[in-house]
């Protein structure tokens, strides 16, 4: 079946696809977004029910969630397990809304530290788009953080709670930097969203609608401004004309029927695992190794962030399960390079609030804090709501052998080849993880922990995929140019963190949305000669 041609076709309605669609409405072009998942209703979220901690259909891993709209990811050969969400809002449906920006130095790692690569743009280039994105998403925090560039327009901060105050005291003892986390959470009524109720488990979705997921931020406005969003449409491949231009896609609809959709411009926003998967699935005589892959870099340079998770047990209740789990405070003490530490680049320490009893027990047993048998009940009482965790989000460097490929056997529910990831922690990351684990232990001790569990660095999950269609000026060492257009296919764009050249030491969503708005702005500015060399 063939549908009417559209001017712009966006694939993926997640964090970046939503920002792109909204921004391009300025052009009054006919814009269609195809999304393989559904809308999530606020009443669907687990926090509405008593089984709020045990709903596999809202698990982060697509391999556990196993919804028909998910695609499995073979992650056996990776110590870090990817998480995502496939639906309107994408990963922001489940994200924790921790909303730091990349630092200026992140765009210059080669020049400054001799590692990674420089980006073909700067923090200054993105700054207006960071600000625009903050205005759409709504970001809570306190201005004046000496660890990051100044910004304006923040909503009141998320309160620290007992847990946050306890850990903050530890940082003060050591004279280390900390600051309340910037959080994409409405702490007061904001653009039609009600204020946060401190439900706790943001990572299974926000029933209150206070968390800025793009289904309730960008999408309502984009749709009001004329964008068509078609759900349960899974794009199987991007098709090309004889002259090498993309001419549309073939997608499988909710009934399993293949449909043809023609478009003048195709923009992929499927996230840094879904995007290379789609490009690699889009083979043709002209592009036998996958679309836009003349450099051979589609899927390569996958970065996931190395993560060091350290838990401390305190001798008092911390009320940690009350309040947004991922948004408390951060520390930039070890963010910028200091080669005396034995590695380049750095990390953010992110203090997590405690979780509910199920997650606390699972984590307690996994870390050995909670024994089986007679001592179980007493140990649980000693640890539950007395545990604070610090996750150090460590910058991992781009390495070509870390990559996304197509799995030779695994497919999604429509029979389309699924993604496989092969990922190893580099030497620099391993040194950084060791350092981070030691520092997290030190600060938890300073905060008064009576016991600190060994740091976990393997088997951790990450929703921070980046780098698999990197941007750059040279077509032999990058997939898209400095404004997001494919070097090989002049009407094909990428909108998501696949474009990232390096990974920074912070969660990526603020930066990837700013980048998407930046690409949209470039498209708008170049409409008259968009496809020129």
């Amino acid at each position: 079946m063939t549908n009417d041609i559209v001017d712009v076709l966006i694939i993926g309605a997640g964090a970046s696809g939503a920002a792109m669609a909204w921004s391009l409405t300025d052009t009054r072009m006919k814009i269609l977004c195809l999304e393989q998942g559904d809308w999530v209703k606020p009443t669907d979220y687990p926090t509405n029910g008593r089984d709020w901690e045990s709903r596999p259909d809202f698990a982060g891993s697509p391999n556990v969630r196993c919804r028909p709209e998910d695609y499995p990811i073979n992650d056996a050969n990776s110590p870090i397990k990817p998480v995502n969400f496939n639906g309107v809002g994408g990963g922001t449906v489940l994200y924790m809304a921790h909303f730091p920006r990349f630092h200026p130095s992140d765009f210059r790692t080669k020049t400054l530290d001799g590692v990674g690569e420089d980006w073909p743009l700067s923090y200054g280039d993105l700054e207006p788009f960071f600000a625009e994105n903050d205005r759409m998403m709504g970001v809570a925090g306190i201005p004046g953080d000496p660890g990051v560039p100044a910004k304006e327009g923040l909503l009141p901060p998320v309160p620290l709670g007992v847990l946050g105050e306890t850990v903050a005291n530890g940082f003060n003892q050591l004279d280390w930097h900390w600051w309340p986390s910037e959080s994409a959470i409405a702490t007061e009524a904001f653009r039609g969203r009600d204020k946060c109720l401190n439900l706790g488990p943001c990572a299974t979705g926000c029933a209150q609608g206070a968390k800025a997921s793009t289904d309730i931020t960008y999408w309502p406005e984009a749709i009001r401004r004329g964008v068509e969003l078609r759900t349960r449409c899974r794009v199987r491949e991007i098709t090309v004309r004889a002259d090498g231009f993309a001419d549309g896609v073939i997608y499988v609809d909710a009934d399993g029927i293949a449909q043809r959709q023609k478009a003048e411009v195709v923009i992929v926003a499927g996230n840094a695992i879904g995007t290379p998967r789609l490009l690699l699935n889009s083979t043709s005589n002209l592009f036998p190794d996958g679309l836009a892959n003349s450099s051979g870099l589609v899927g390569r340079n996958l970065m996931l962030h190395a993560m060091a998770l350290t838990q401390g047990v305190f001798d008092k209740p911390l009320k940690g399960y009350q309040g947004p789990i991922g948004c408390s405070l951060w520390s930039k003490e070890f963010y910028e390079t200091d080669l005396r530490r034995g590695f380049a680049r750095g990390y953010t320490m992110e203090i997590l609030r405690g979780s509910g009893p199920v997650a606390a027990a699972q984590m307690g047993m996994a870390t050995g804090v909670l024994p089986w048998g007679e001592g179980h009940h007493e140990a649980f009482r000693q640890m539950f709501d007395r545990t604070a965790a610090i996750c150090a989000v460590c910058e991992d460097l781009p390495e070509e052998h870390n990559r996304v490929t197509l799995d030779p056997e695994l497919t999604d529910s429509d029979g389309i080849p699924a993604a496989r990831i092969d990922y190893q922690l580099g030497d620099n990351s391993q040194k950084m993880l060791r350092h981070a684990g030691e520092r997290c232990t030190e600060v938890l001790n300073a905060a008064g922990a009576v016991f600190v569990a060994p740091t976990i660095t393997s088997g951790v999950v990450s929703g921070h995929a980046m780098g698999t269609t990197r941007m750059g000026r040279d077509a032999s060492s990058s997939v898209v140019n400095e404004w997001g257009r494919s070097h090989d296919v002049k009407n094909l764009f990428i909108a998501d963190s696949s474009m990232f050249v390096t990974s920074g030491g912070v969660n990526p969503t603020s930066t990837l949305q700013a980048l998407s708005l930046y690409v949209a702005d470039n498209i708008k500015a170049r409409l008259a000669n968009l496809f020129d060399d």
Partner: protein
Amino acid sequence: MVTLISSEIPFSPDQRQRLQELSDLMIPASEPMPGAGDSEIFAGTLETLARHQELVVQTLDRLESLEDIQSVAPDFAQVFQTAVATSYYRDDRVLEGLGLPVRAPYPEGHEVDKTDWSLLDPVRKREPFYRNVGWDTGDD
């Protein structure tokens, strides 16, 4: 909450019994707390374990004793303890025993005390320390 009916549970009566014994070994009853082998809690555990049928059956087949399972079969132990914790710690009796609210987080939520931001005073005194570079392309 438990949605599998017993004829759909992919374990034999003997396998179920061993899993139930193991559940009680893991979290024994202790007034006022039930054990994890309690029939209602165990039904929820089985539902999760059904998704790992192959691993569970293979492990039970090769194990003679349920002791030391954490060192002898760590993969299974990981799956098993996750399943037990998931079912056990959502049970009303368990939550009551721990003094926790027996309700969903929404719509009531939680009241978090206001923060005294004077805690930040020492950090406010600090000069900006991020590397202030690269605001323009090529400007370092």
